[in-house]
Every structure is written in structure tokens, then in C-alpha cells.
């Protein structure tokens, strides 16, 4: 068994603030990510078995948890909680109401397991936009995130995150040591769907050469177009300009056509 000293209570970083867009202030949506390589665990919450046989690199669906204080204990899978000390015990995790959180077990920069509670941005995006959240959850120094070879995030440190809003689409993304362009993860094609927060975790260990990406998506954050500009000629209008078109079409009012062309892009 891999011996781990989970320094959870000390390094538990919860900076949750309630999201204004959430309708229910009495509970939060909580997903759990296992980002510690090499150890399958059982997760117990408030003394109840919560996630048996939870494997590295897996993510739960979001669970609605009432706002309140939670004690989290993590055991090696199959261990008897009655006779075994937990590998990790985080007491008094305060879950606020109305937030969307991801509780992540991962390595800190030096390779010690820790827990982080990240707040996911679920605010509405403009139509056509996507959100990319990058979280450094790996035993590695500060990194840059490259898109198409150029840094779009610089100097990101464990356990921090950075959030970008972009046009929806695909990017060729890679992770490199801060200030360099030689990928330590990727490059990989990241599809960033419209109206979605794509949350990418860099996890694993640089030293152990098992760095990888874990991906969580939260969709349904889309906005809608503000209108439909679907006519630009004035041909079918009932207004005063229709007669000009008739003149124009018979060649009697070329000047009108010229005027119209100058202004056509506003429709």
C-alpha cells in the first residue's frame, strides 16, 4: 500500500461564495474528482459511506448537498473505518448554499495529497461564447497553458485556477513549465462547446511522469442571440422605400441603389 500522509485539514482551501444565478440557497451542487494517482479509495462523509471504490481520474456527477458543515474521511478502498485511521480527514468543510463546487483530491506542488474545494463559474455566457477553467492540481511547479503554441495562461500555480471566456470552438492546448513552450502535457485538441464551462485539471506528478488532464464540463450556461437580422433589401417592405426599389430595378434610380449599398450592412 502506498503510504500517504494526507494533509487535508491544513490545506483544505474553500473559498466558496454563493453564485447569484443559483435558485436554491439551501443547497449546492457538488462534484467530486479523484486526482491522486495510484490509489483507489472509499470516501466517507459525516460518517456515512459516500463513494466506495473511487478510482483515480474519475469524477462524480454533481450531487445536491444541503448547505452546512461536512466531515470528510478518505480510506484506502476496502479498509474498515472502525479499525483503520483515515488516510485523510477533513473536518468542518463548509458547503454554502447556491454554489456549484468541485471537491478535488489531488497532489500539492510537492506531491503530498490534499483536498481543494473549487467554486465553478456557472454564470450565463453570451451567445456563441464558451468558458475555459484551468486548474493546477498536479505535483509540478508553476505552468503556462498554451493555445496554438502561444501562452494564454501564465504562471499558474497549484492549487490555483484561471478562467477564460472565448469564442466557442476547438483549441490546440498544451501545458508547459512556466516561461517555456515545451509541453509537459499535450498538445491535445480541446473542444470547447458553446454555453459550457469546460474545466480542465492538470493532475498527477511531474516527477513520476504521470501528468494528465481531467476534464469536467458544465453545460446549459448559454445565452441567446439578441435578434435575427434577416432582411437587407427593403424589397418586401410596406414602407416608403419599396417604390425606390421598383425604380431602381427599372434602371431609373441608380443613385438610389448606390445609396442603399452604402447602408446595406446595417440590416
Amino acid at each position, binding site marked *: 500500500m502506498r503510504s500517504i500522509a494526507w494533509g487535508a485539514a491544513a490545506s483544505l482551501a474553500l473559498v466558496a461564495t454563493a453564485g447569484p444565478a443559483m435558485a436554491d440557497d439551501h443547497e449546492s451542487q457538488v462534484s467530486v474528482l479523484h486526482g491522486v494517482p495510484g490509489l483507489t479509495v472509499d470516501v466517507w462523509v*459525516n*460518517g*456515512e*459511506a*459516500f*463513494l*466506495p*471504490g*473511487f478510482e483515480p*481520474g*474519475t*469524477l*462524480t*456527477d454533481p*450531487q*445536491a*448537498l*444541503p448547505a452546512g458543515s461536512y466531515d470528510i474521511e478518505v480510506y484506502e478502498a476496502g479498509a474498515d473505518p472502525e479499525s483503520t485511521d483515515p488516510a485523510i480527514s477533513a473536518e468542518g468543510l463548509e458547503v454554502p448554499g447556491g454554489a456549484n463546487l468541485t471537491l478535488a483530491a489531488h497532489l500539492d506542488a510537492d506531491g503530498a495529497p490534499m483536498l481543494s474545494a473549487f467554486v465553478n463559474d456557472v454564470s450565463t455566457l*453570451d*451567445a*456563441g461564447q464558451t468558458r475555459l477553467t484551468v486548474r493546477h492540481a498536479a505535483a509540478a511547479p508553476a505552468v503556462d497553458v498554451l493555445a496554438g503554441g502561444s501562452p494564454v495562461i501564465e504562471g499558474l500555480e497549484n492549487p490555483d485556477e484561471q478562467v477564460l471566456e472565448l469564442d*466557442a470552438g476547438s483549441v490546440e492546448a498544451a501545458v508547459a513549465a512556466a516561461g517555456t513552450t515545451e509541453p509537459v502535457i499535450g498538445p491535445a*485538441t*480541446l473542444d470547447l462547446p*458553446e*454555453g459550457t464551462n469546460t474545466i*480542465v485539471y492538470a493532475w498527477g506528478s511531474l516527477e513520476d511522469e504521470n501528468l494528465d*488532464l*481531467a*476534464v*469536467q*464540463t458544465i453545460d*446549459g450556461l*448559454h445565452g*441567446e*442571440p*439578441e*435578434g*435575427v*437580422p*434577416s*432582411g*437587407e*433589401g*427593403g*424589397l*418586401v*417592405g*410596406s*414602407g*416608403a*422605400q*419599396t417604390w425606390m426599389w421598383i425604380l431602381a430595378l427599372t434602371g431609373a434610380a441608380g443613385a438610389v441603389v448606390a445609396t*442603399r*449599398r452604402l*447602408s*446595406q*450592412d*446595417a*440590416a
Partner: protein
Amino acid sequence: MSRNGWFGVLAVSVLLFVVAGVSLVGATGDDDIGSLDVSAATASVEQTEAEPGDVPDEGSAREESEARAGAAPTVPAIARRPASLETVQAEAAAQAVPVGLRVPSVDLDAPLDQVGVRDDGLMEIPDDGDRAGWYRYGPTPGDDEGSAVLAGHVDTQEGLGAMAALMDVGMDAEVEVEMDDGTVHRYRVVGRQTIEKDELPVTELFDRSGPARLTLVTCGGPWRYEASSYRDNVVVVAVPIDER
């Protein structure tokens, strides 16, 4: 806390049932047809309103959990999945896209482009008036829910657009949307309305939930020279014809 207390909060989420189609607010057309509150449409497709995504994989996850002998069988299973990039992004499987719109009763036949949003926040419309655009971020024709939006110019500098024919579409007219895999989805017109652009209910029009419907949009009403724009949008709503 009881053993099941964690999931008591997974109470059935109440679906805010957004009525399909556009509201009557702002309607300006004297010759509108049908009622675009589409209550009839709502009734006919209501059974599609269940949101299986609300409790994803609970059944299969539970089976999986119970299959693990002795692993706290009474614990309600929480669905979990590999979070690797390959797994997550493979879920976005290639879906057929619409390539053609036909309304035979008014000789409307327009190839479709995939369109998005312009820099000014308005829906992108194909420059070519002979074509129409499918709002690619929203529902796809044939989807089980939401409003698939197809829009095109009523006219351009070159003349009338294909979508000008929408002005003459009647109730119950059949609408066909051809997909790139050869599938054809058939719809039936349940209403046509002329709505001032300022009043266009974009939230309903681009709604991604609620009953499945097809929303066709072009321009209409008086041409406003000062804005180089028509005052109104012409909106036609159609609902799926049950093909079973």
C-alpha cells in the same frame, strides 16, 4: 444523518415548463395565423419532457455498485465516470446536421448553412438570400426538445430571398428538414406571426428545452430606411409530425 439523507436532497427537480414558441407579446401582423403559444404542440409532445439527464445513470450506477460484492450495498450509488480528455470529449459524438429546408406548399427550398452569432450579438444570417442558416449552438432539427432555429434573409441586394416564401405559409403546412445523413425530419406549421424586432422573445425563440419544435425566422413589416432594416421578424413555428 440517515444513510439516505444525502440523497433526500436529490429531490425531483421541478421542471419549469417553458411553453413552446413565441409569445403573443409584440405581435403586429394583421395576417398572423395560428396561435403561437403552441399549447397544442405542448400537449402533443409533453411526454418527451422527462429529463433523464436530471438523474443520470442512477440505475446503471446502482447496478454497478451492487455488483461490487459487499461494498456497502445500501449506499445510493453516485454516478461517476472517467474524466480523461478522450472519454469526456468522445461523448460529444458527431451528430447529423441539417443541410436543407423545404416547404413544398410555398415552393420554399433552401440549402442550409451552419451559423452562429455575429460580433454584435445578433444571429448570423447567410449572405446569400437563396440560403438559410441553422443556429448551430441550439437544438438540432430532430432533437427531442427545444427550438431548432432556421433563419434567412427575406431579401438581399440581389432580390427576394428564399425565406420570403414564409410570408405565405399556411397552417398545417408540411416542413421538411433534410440532414446530411439523408434523414428527413417532418414538421407541421402551427403558427405564423409578425413580431416587432424589439419585442422578439429571443429567450423562447432560442429555447433549448421544452417541446421539440422548428422555428423559422425571416424579416417583415415595413422597411425602415433610416435603420436599413425591417421593423419586424416573421416567425413560423412548426412541430414534429409523429413518424411512428
